[in-house]
């Protein structure tokens, strides 16, 4: 019954979404306030029905109702409750429901928080959101219905893929979807601006919190996914340039560019048309990302064709939204007036370079990801584009971006002081060179590439700190005065500094992991000892452990450092119900570094193989991501950005030019 009711709720949500598309858009066209006014209640009611369906699906999973096909294929009565729930979105149908749930959530947020938006803009935005919801709900209802019944109902389910039975599945997909779908708001604002032919600084102010929100979630989602892959897959890698990872990286790159161009637009009314285009591109990448993962097109062009209904529908959605919005852009963009002149050397100029580099990187990742598919479809030739390609192309672009990054906040709007900025950046570069040189000397010379990366990372962090101390006039005026300046600074200033430092921190982790990791591949018998970095590991033997729905064969390692036992690690081979094995790496964190042990296979001579890594500073990779997100959150909490906040407080006016 729950499944049928939920299915029906989805149908109702679809009908409401269609109404939410047609009525407000028509009302905005005819300037009919009544028609425009129905957008909010429709959005809220639509979200209610989607939430009902989502809750119904969760209930079916929790109750282990195996008469529902999706539950049967993705759950098991012995699965822990958490994985029964996360199993809801651990499959295609359920994850699409999560997607529209997040979409409905954002629409409802706009409907309830958007009171300060002009009526026409709000109606258009909600109308566009409604159209996205309508199309996705139709997609679910016609090709991916999660509420299909099985008759007769099986007694037991097939369980969720063991690798997905992890806390990571509870966190990563929801964060990622909050990011992907969050950009739909920016998209809707862009489309609304194009429809109205009106675009001003106020538009940028309204849309910026939404962009920032989506960006924060996407940043966290990517960082979380990377850490999940790192500890779950068991070979110590954290980023593989896998198409599925690239799918989330593209909207992040475009979204980061959008975040910055929207600032230029709000402060200086420049880059208007470009910002609108970026908003469209970012959400297009999000759509593409959703479908790259979901459609199976990545495994091969042929598996895409295996389910023609779904494949064709997906193509239609992409063409409708990406093609449609770009056509709208081409038609209406000339109507929008450009404003805000600036000199090449200025904060606007730096942000333009930022946008160019980010866009070029996104385009590179896009080409690299889809090129093999297109080439195979057109010529039949099969090639691979993997990590080495992206390291050689996207890598240098991102390093260039990092070199420009500290310059942006240091430059003034309109016309910057090139000499002053160069002096400060030379100072940052000096610090970075000194640190990189010192580390190289201490570690007996490392790979030259690591030194270069280290330099960039320190330079980025130092540059951000120098900019911040400039604002406080640190060491130039008494400390107390600097402190009171800091209190007067808007939170977005702290946000910028933190986010930029976060980028540097992440790079520091990446560089250290790549350049100074140590690795041992060994065959071990009980009593064997291994030395790695300054650790001394002794292998105690293999033991068994039982869990709710798994059985571990674990190896016990005692870890000593300087003669003292510091911890015990128990990497395991875990066998789930139905004989599906996974690896459970043993990880211990020391400072920012991690000792990582992954167990292999028993060898013929009675030994067991193991991979042992020491990865210095590796946790900085994800800590950096979190610092970026915290920076974003600080900016978001700035009252000037808060939705519905009054005009900037007067006290801002005593601050120096930003």
């Amino acid at each position, binding site marked *: 019954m729950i499944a049928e009711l939920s299915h029906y709720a989805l149908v109702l949500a679809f009908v409401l979404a269609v109404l939410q598309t047609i009525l407000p858009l028509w009302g905005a066209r005819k300037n009919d306030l009544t028609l425009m006014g129905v957008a909010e209640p429709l959005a809220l009611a639509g979200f209610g029905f989607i939430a009902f369906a989502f809750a119904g699906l969760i209930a079916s999973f929790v109750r282990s109702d195996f008469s529902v096909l999706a539950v049967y294929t993705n759950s098991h009565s012995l699965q822990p409750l958490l994985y029964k729930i996360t199993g809801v979105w651990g499959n295609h149908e359920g994850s699409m429901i999560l997607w529209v749930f997040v979409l409905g959530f954002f629409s409802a947020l706009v409907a309830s928080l958007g009171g300060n938006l002009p009526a026409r803009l709000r109606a258009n935005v909600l109308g566009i959101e409604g159209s996205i919801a309508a199309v996705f709900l139709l997609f679910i209802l016609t090709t991916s219905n999660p509420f299909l019944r099985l008759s007769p109902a099986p007694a037991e389910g097939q369980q969720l*893929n*063991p*690798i*997905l039975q992890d806390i990571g599945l509870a966190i*990563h*997909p929801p964060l990622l979807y909050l990011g992907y779908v969050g950009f739909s708001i920016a998209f809707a604002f862009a489309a609304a601006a194009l429809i109205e032919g009106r675009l001003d600084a106020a538009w940028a102010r309204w849309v910026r919190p939404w962009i920032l929100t989506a960006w924060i979630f996407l940043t966290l989602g990517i960082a979380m*996914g*990377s850490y999940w*892959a790192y500890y779950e*897959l*068991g*070979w110590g890698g954290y980023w*593989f*340039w*896998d*198409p*599925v*990872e690239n799918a989330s990286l593209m909207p992040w790159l475009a979204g980061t560019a959008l975040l910055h161009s929207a600032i230029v637009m709000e402060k200086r009314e420049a880059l208007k048309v470009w910002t609108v285009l970026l908003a469209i591109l970012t959400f297009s990448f999000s759509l593409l990302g959703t479908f790259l*993962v979901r459609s199976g097109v990545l*495994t091969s062009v042929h598996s895409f064709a295996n389910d023609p209904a779904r494949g064709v529908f997906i193509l239609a959605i992409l063409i409708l939204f990406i093609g449609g919005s770009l056509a709208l852009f081409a038609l209406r963009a000339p109507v929008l007036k*450009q404003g805000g*002149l600036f000199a*090449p050397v200025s904060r606007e100029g730096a942000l333009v370079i930022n946008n*160019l*580099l980010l866009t*070029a990187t996104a*385009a*590179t990742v896009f*080409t*690299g990801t889809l*090129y093999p598919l297109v*080439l195979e479809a057109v010529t039949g*030739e*099969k*090639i*691979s*584009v*993997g*990590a*080495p*390609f992206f390291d*050689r*192309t*996207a890598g240098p*672009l991102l390093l260039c971006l990092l070199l420009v990054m500290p310059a942006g906040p240091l430059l003034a709007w309109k016309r910057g002081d090139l000499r002053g900025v160069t002096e400060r950046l030379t100072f940052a570069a000096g610090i970075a060179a000194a640190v990189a040189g010192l580390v190289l000397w201490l570690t007996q010379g490392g790979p030259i590439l690591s030194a270069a990366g280290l330099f960039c990372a320190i330079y980025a962090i130092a540059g951000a700190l120098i900019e911040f101390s400039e604002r406080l006039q640190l060491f130039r005026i008494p400390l107390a005065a600097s402190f009171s300046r800091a209190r007067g600074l808007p939170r977005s200033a702290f946000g910028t500094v933190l986010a930029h430092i976060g980028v540097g921190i992440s790079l520091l982790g990446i560089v250290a992991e790549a350049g100074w990791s140590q690795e041992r*591949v*060994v*065959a071990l018998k009980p009593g064997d000892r291994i030395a790695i970095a300054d650790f001394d590991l002794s292998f105690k033997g293999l033991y068994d452990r039982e869990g709710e729905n798994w059985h571990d064969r674990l190896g016990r390692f005692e870890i000593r450092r300087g003669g003292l036992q510091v911890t015990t690690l128990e990497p395991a081979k875990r066998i789930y119900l139905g004989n*599906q*094995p*996974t*690896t459970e790496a043993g990880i211990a964190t020391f400072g920012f570094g991690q000792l990582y042990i*992954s*167990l*292999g*296979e028993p*060898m013929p001579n009675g030994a067991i*193989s193991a991979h042992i890594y020491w990865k210095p500073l590796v946790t900085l990779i994800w800590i950096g991501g979190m610092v970026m997100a915290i920076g974003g959150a600080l900016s978001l909490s700035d009252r000037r950005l808060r939705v519905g906040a009054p005009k900037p407080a007067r006290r801002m*006016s*005593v601050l120096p030019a930003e």
Partner: protein
Amino acid sequence: MRAAILAISFFLSFSSAVFAVEPDEMLADPALEARARALSQTLRCMVCQNQSIEDSAAPLARDLRLIVREHIKAGESDQQIRDYLVARYGEFVLLNPRLSAHTVVLWAIPGLILVCGFIWIAVVLLRGNPPQPAKLSPEEEKKLAKLVRNSDDLTKL
């Protein structure tokens, strides 16, 4: 990421090895072994979804790792080994695609976008900046100075 994970679990279901390089595969000479590892990272496990043979647990990847090491021991250069593998398995085996007629677009895109972007920006900036207005007359300068004095802090915003 999820598909990567799914792909991997898919391989686990028919291969017993869990991670890549096993101790018994490794070369005794650390320098040669390091070369083998570096080379392996640029070679694709053809039955996997976007994994190098260095990372893959599939039996095919193990076979390829052993082939690579045999050829290294025989004293071949990385290029010779790559050529051998391409002749045997096609270009699909290279994770770093060769520059050729059908990959020229792929390799050119990053540079092309950068160059076009710069040109576009330059054009827009030049078009956007109208010729500088004529200098202010002395009276106008005076007027301006007076205005600036009166507006006090406002200009600093």
